[in-house]
C-alpha cells in the first residue's frame, strides 16, 4: 500500500534519513520504533507531505507522492495524527473533528461527514460528553482521542500516528492502542511511530527499528518484541553496556 524506497531527507545539508526503505501492506499495523532523534518523525513528515526536501521514492497505492503537498496527500488517503496532538485548543471538540474533514467539504459530502462524525463519537464516547467544550480543556488522553478522531474524519485508508502514547498514563496508552486494533479490524492500515517500543510492537504485525536515519532491524513484531537488540536500540544504550555478562 505504502512503499518507501531509498528515502533520504535533508534538513539543510544534514541528512536525517539515510536511504530508508520500508513498506506497509494493506491491512497491516506497522510500527516504526527508535530512540529520540532517530528520524522517525521526519520519515512520517515526508510521507505526509509536510517535508518537501526528500529524495527517493514514496508510492501510495501505486502512485508516487513526489511533489504532493499535505492536502493532496490527505485526499489520496493518508491522514496524520501529529506528535503532540496539535489540536486547536480554543475551538470546540466538534469543530476540531469537522476540521479533519476539511478536504471533503469542498466535495459537498456533508451527509457522509455527519455520519463519520457519529462514527468517531461512537468510537470515543467521551468526545460526545465534551462535544461543545473547548478542546484545550481536555485531558491529554482525551486530546489524543480527539486528534485520532480528527484524522479519521478525512476517511483515510492509511492512518499515520506520531507518538500517540507520549505523555499519557499507561491505562490511556492501552486504550488508544486498543482503538487502533479495532480500526485495523475495520480495514484501516496503520503506520505507527513510537518510542514506546513495547506497546507499539504488541499491536503491530511487523516492525522496523530506526537508528540515526537508517533501518537496522526489521521483522515480525512478535520477534522484535522479544529482542534484546530492540531494547538496546529503543533505550539508546551503548553496545558495551549490553556486552557485559558473558565475556
Amino acid at each position, binding site marked *: 500500500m505504502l512503499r518507501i524506497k531509498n528515502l533520504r531527507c535533508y534538513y539543510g545539508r544534514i541528512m536525517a534519513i539515510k536511504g*530508508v526503505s520500508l*513498506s506497509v501492506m494493506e491491512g497491516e499495523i506497522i510500527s516504526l520504533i527508535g530512540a529520540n532523534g532517530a528520524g522517525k518523525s521526519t520519515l512520517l513528515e515526508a510521507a505526509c507531505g509536510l517535508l518537501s526536501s526528500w529524495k527517493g521514492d514514496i508510492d501510495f497505492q501505486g502512485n508516487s507522492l513526489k511533489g504532493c503537498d499535505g492536502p493532496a496527500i490527505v485526499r489520496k488517503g493518508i491522514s496524520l495524527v501529529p506528535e503532540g496532538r496539535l489540536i486547536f485548543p480554543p475551538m470546540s471538540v466538534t469543530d476540531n473533528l469537522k476540521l479533519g474533514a476539511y478536504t471533503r467539504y469542498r466535495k459537498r459530502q456533508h451527509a457522509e461527514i455527519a455520519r463519520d462524525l457519529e462514527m468517531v463519537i461512537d468510537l470515543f464516547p467521551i468526545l460526545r460528553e465534551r462535544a461543545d467544550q473547548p478542546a484545550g480543556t481536555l485531558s491529554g488522553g482525551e486530546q489524543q482521542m480527539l486528534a485520532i478522531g480528527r484524522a479519521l474524519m478525512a476517511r483515510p485508508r492509511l492512518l499515520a500516528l506520531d507518538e500517540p502514547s507520549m505523555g499519557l498514563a499507561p491505562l490511556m496508552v492501552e486504550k488508544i492502542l486498543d482503538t487502533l486494533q479495532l480500526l485495523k479490524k475495520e480495514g484501516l492500515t496503520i503506520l505507527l511511530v513510537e518510542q514506546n517500543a513495547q506497546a507499539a510492537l504488541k499491536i503491530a504485525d511487523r516492525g522496523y527499528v530506526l537508528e540515526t536515519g537508517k533501518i537496522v532491524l*526489521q521483522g515480525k513484531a512478535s*520477534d522484535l518484541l522479544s529482542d534484546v*537488540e530492540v531494547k538496546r536500540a529503543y533505550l539508546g544504550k551503548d553496545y558495551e553496556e549490553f556486552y557485559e555478562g558473558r565475556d
Partner: protein
Amino acid sequence: MTRDTRTPEEWSQLRLERLQTTLNRAYRNVPFHQNRQNEIARKTRRDPSLIEDIREIGAFPFMERKHLGEHYPYGLFAVPLRDIVRIHTAPGASLNPTVTGYTRQDLNLWREVVARALTAAGVTPHDILQISLDFGLTNWGRDYKDGAEELEIGVIPNAALSPDKQLLVLRDYKTSTLVTTPSEAGHLADLMFQAGMNPTATNLKRFILVGEPVEADFRDLLTERLHVETWVHYGLSEVPGPAIGFECAEHQGLHLNEDHFLAEIIDPDSGRVQPEGEIGELVLTTLTTRALPLIRFRTGDRARIIPEPCPCGRPLVRMEWLFDRTDDILTVNGVKVHRDQIQHRLARALGFNPECGYFVTKHPGEKKYLEVWIGMEYSFFSDEIKDLEKQVDGLVETLRENLGVPVRIRLKEKASLADLPSDSKT
C-alpha cells in the same frame, strides 16, 4: 509458500529492505565490515550502505572462508555474545574451526527455511523423518530436526549409529523420509541389499539428499532399487545452514530462499558477476541472518541460475547445482575439507612437512573417504612394521577427529606421488 501473493515489486522491495538492513547492521556491529565499507566509501566517495538496488551489492568485496578463520572465534558476530543462544563448531578451512553463532531469531529463521524445503518435498506430519549425517554435518542435523518439528513431523534426530543400526531404525521405526548425503544413501542402499532387506517392506518414501550435488543416474538408481523419490537440498555446511536451495515437485533445479539469501553467480577468476544463466561460482549474501551476516560469501560451489520461472509457480528463482568446485576444497560425504588443513594437521603430528597427495575415493559398498598418500621420508621410516602401523593409525585418528570425515592413509614411495594429478598434491 506456494501461493505467495506478493507481486514481483513487493518481492524486490522486501529484498532491498532486508539487504539495506543487513548492511547497516554489519557496518554498525562488525569492525571487519565497517572497515570494508569505509574502504569503499574512501574510493568511491559515497556511503556504500546507501545501496539503492540489490544489484549494487556487486561493489562490495567478497568474503571467503579464510576470513572466518582469521576472525576466529567471534570476530564476525554482529550481536553481543549474550544474544547468542547456540554456538556451533564446524571443521573449518584453516587450523581454526569455523564458529557459527545463532540468535533466537536465527534459529526461527532456520526452522522456517527447513520447514519450507520439507513442505516442498511433500513431507507432512504423517511422516517419520530420520536424519543420518556425518558428524561434520551435525549442525545441519539440528536444523533439520528443528524444521521438521516445526511441521510436527516425527523426527529421529541424527545419532552416531553404526550403519547396521541406522538400517534397523529405518526399518523398525517406520521411517518414511531419510535426510542424508548421497554417499551415505548409496551406502545404505548397498547394505539393505546385502542384508536381504526388501525395500518394499520398509515405509521409506523419499530421500532428501544434502551436502553434494547428485548425478541423475544415481537418483534413478536409488528410485529403481529402493522405490523412493529423491529430493536435493543445497546448503553451506560451515555457515550458515542447510536448505538454502531446495527442489519442488518439478525436480528441475533448486529454488533459492530469496527472501533470506541473495545469490549471485560470478566468474571465479575475474570475480565479475556473470550474465544471467551463465555458469559460475555461487556467491551468497544473507538477508535476515542476525548473528553472523555474510556479505558476498564465496561458496566455491559451481552453479547456474535458471532464469525461466518454475512451472510450480513459486516466485523463488531456481539454481542448477553443478559438479566440481571452483576452489580447491574436497567434499567428503558433504563435509568440506581444505587441503591446507590436511597438510597442517600432518605437519603438526609428524613434526615435518611431508610430501602428500589427497583425493576422495569410494569403494563399492562403502561411504566415500579421504585418501591421503604420504611420501616416505627417512625420518619417518622404521624397519618395524608395527611402529609404522602405529604411526599411520595415529595420523588417521588425528585427521578423522579434526576433519570429521573417514580417512585412509597410505605410505608411498615419493616417486609414485608424481603420478597423481597436480591438483591433488602439495
